[in-house]
C-alpha cells in the first residue's frame, strides 16, 4: 500500500436536457423571473473594436437543426485581454466577454452581438489568432462541447495559430472559421456547427 493521493473527482456531467432555458434563459422559456438575465450583453457599451454579429445554426447527424441548444461564448476584448484576474490586462468598464444565447425554437438559428476580439497570448510564446471560445449544451449532449470561432478575414493569424495547427486534417480546420458577410452595413459572421457527420465541427477537450 502507498499513501493516498486524496484528490477529489470532478462531479460527472449530465445533459442540460430540453428545458435548459428555464434555468439559464427563463424569458425564452416563456416567463420572466429575474430582474436581469445574464449573458445577453457580451461587450458592453464602452468596448473598443469592431462591432460584429455572429450567427449560425447547430446541425445534428441527420442534417436537421438542433432547436433546443444553448451556447455560451467567452472572448477577449479588442486588445486581447479577458475580463478575469489572469486575463492579460485591463478591459473596458462593462466588458464581460461572456454571453449566452439560445436558438429560435422554430428554425434553430442563433446569433449574438459582440466586438471582434484581438489576438491573445499563446501558452508560453507567441499569440493565438482572434477567436471566441464556444460551449454548447443541449438535450442529447452528455458533456458540454467546446469549440472555437475563428474569423476568415484573419488568414495570416489563423495560419500561425497554435490551436488551428493542432488539427492535423487541414480540411477540418475550416469548420472553425466563421465567414464574414455584410448586411445592411453591419458585419455578420456565419458560423454553423455540425455535431456529427460530414464536415463535423472540430471539438476540443480543453
Amino acid at each position, binding site marked *: 500500500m502507498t499513501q493516498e493521493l*486524496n*484528490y*477529489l*473527482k*470532478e*462531479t*460527472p*456531467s*449530465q*445533459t442540460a*436536457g*430540453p*428545458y*435548459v432555458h*428555464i*434555468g*439559464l434563459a*427563463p424569458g425564452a*422559456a*416563456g*416567463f420572466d*423571473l*429575474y430582474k436581469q438575465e*445574464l449573458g445577453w450583453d457580451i461587450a458592453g457599451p464602452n468596448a473598443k473594436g469592431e462591432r460584429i454579429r455572429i450567427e449560425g445554426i447547430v446541425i*445534428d*447527424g441527420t442534417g*436537421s437543426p*438542433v432547436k*433546443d441548444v444553448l451556447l455560451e461564448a*467567452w472572448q477577449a476584448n479588442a486588445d486581447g485581454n*479577458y*475580463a*478575469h484576474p*489572469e*486575463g492579460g490586462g485591463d478591459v473596458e468598464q462593462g466588458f*464581460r*466577454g*461572456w454571453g449566452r444565447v439560445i436558438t429560435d425554437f422554430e428554425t434553430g438559428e442563433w446569433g449574438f452581438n459582440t466586438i471582434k476580439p484581438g489576438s*491573445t497570448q499563446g*501558452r*508560453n*510564446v507567441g499569440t*493565438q489568432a482572434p477567436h471566441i*471560445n464556444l460551449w454548447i449544451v*443541449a*438535450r*442529447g*449532449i*452528455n*458533456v*458540454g*462541447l467546446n469549440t*472555437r470561432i475563428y474569423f476568415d478575414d484573419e488568414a495570416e493569424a489563423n495560419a500561425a495559430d497554435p*490551436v488551428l495547427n493542432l488539427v492535423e486534417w487541414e480540411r*477540418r480546420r475550416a469548420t472553425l472559421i466563421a465567414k464574414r458577410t455584410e448586411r445592411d452595413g453591419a458585419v455578420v459572421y456565419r458560423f454553423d456547427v455540425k*455535431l*456529427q*457527420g460530414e464536415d463535423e465541427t472540430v*471539438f*476540443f477537450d480543453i
Partner: protein
Amino acid sequence: MPKPGEFYQRDREWHPPALTRDYKTSVSRSPQYSLISLQNSVSEITGPVFGHNDIDPLDKDLIYNYAQPGESAIGERIILHGRVLDENGRPVPKTLVEAWQANAGGRYRHKKDTYLAPIDPNFGGCGRTLTDENGYYYFRTVKPGAYPWRNWVNSWRPAHIHMSIFGTGFAQRLITQCYFEGDPLIHKCPIVNTIPDPEAINRLIAPLDLNATIPLDTIAYKFDIVLRGRRSTLFENRLEGN
C-alpha cells in the same frame, strides 16, 4: 509560492461518453471524431466573473421567487445545500450556481412541456446564487416530482434538479443533475446510466441531511459539487517545442 497553472485533465472515462444508445437523443447529437486535446491557454484558464450586482438575494429561494405575495410554491419544502470544491479540495468562492427543475408534480414551466400534471402558479422553477468565501451555497425549493419522457414509452426521470456551475475558468464549466437519496427511479434512468461508473453516479445522489433541516419547517439534502482542480507551476515549461 508556485503559480496556479493548467487544469487537471478531465477524466473522460468518468464522465458519460458522447454516444450512449439507451439515451436515444444522444445518437444523432454525438460527435464521431475524437475530441482534440488542448493544453490550456489563457482562453481556457480564464472565465466569466460574477458579483452580487448580477443577482438578487431572492433568486435562490424557489419557494418564493415566483410566488404571488402571501403565497408559496406547493410541495415538499427542501433546502438543497453544499459546497463547490475543486479537485484539490479547496473551496471555489463567489462562483455562480444556477438551478432549474420541475414542480412538485413533475411539470416544467416551459412552453414545450405538455405533461398533464398542472403548472403551479406560484412556482417558476429556477434559481441562482453565488457561493460564499468558503464555497458554500444553498437554495430553498420544493422537491421536484418524477416525470415521464419520450425515450422508451415507459421512461421516467427520477426527481432531479439541474445544476449549472462556472468555477474560475471556462475549462471548469459544468452542467449536471442532482438526484435524491432513496429514489428507486435513479438506477433505471437512461440519462443517469450514461455515466459508466456506479461510483460516479453515487456522486450525483444527494443524501438526506437531518443536521441541516429547519425543524418543523423544511427538510434538507446535501449536494457537494467538485470542479476541476489546477496544477501548481513548480517549474516553467521549457519554451522550446511549445
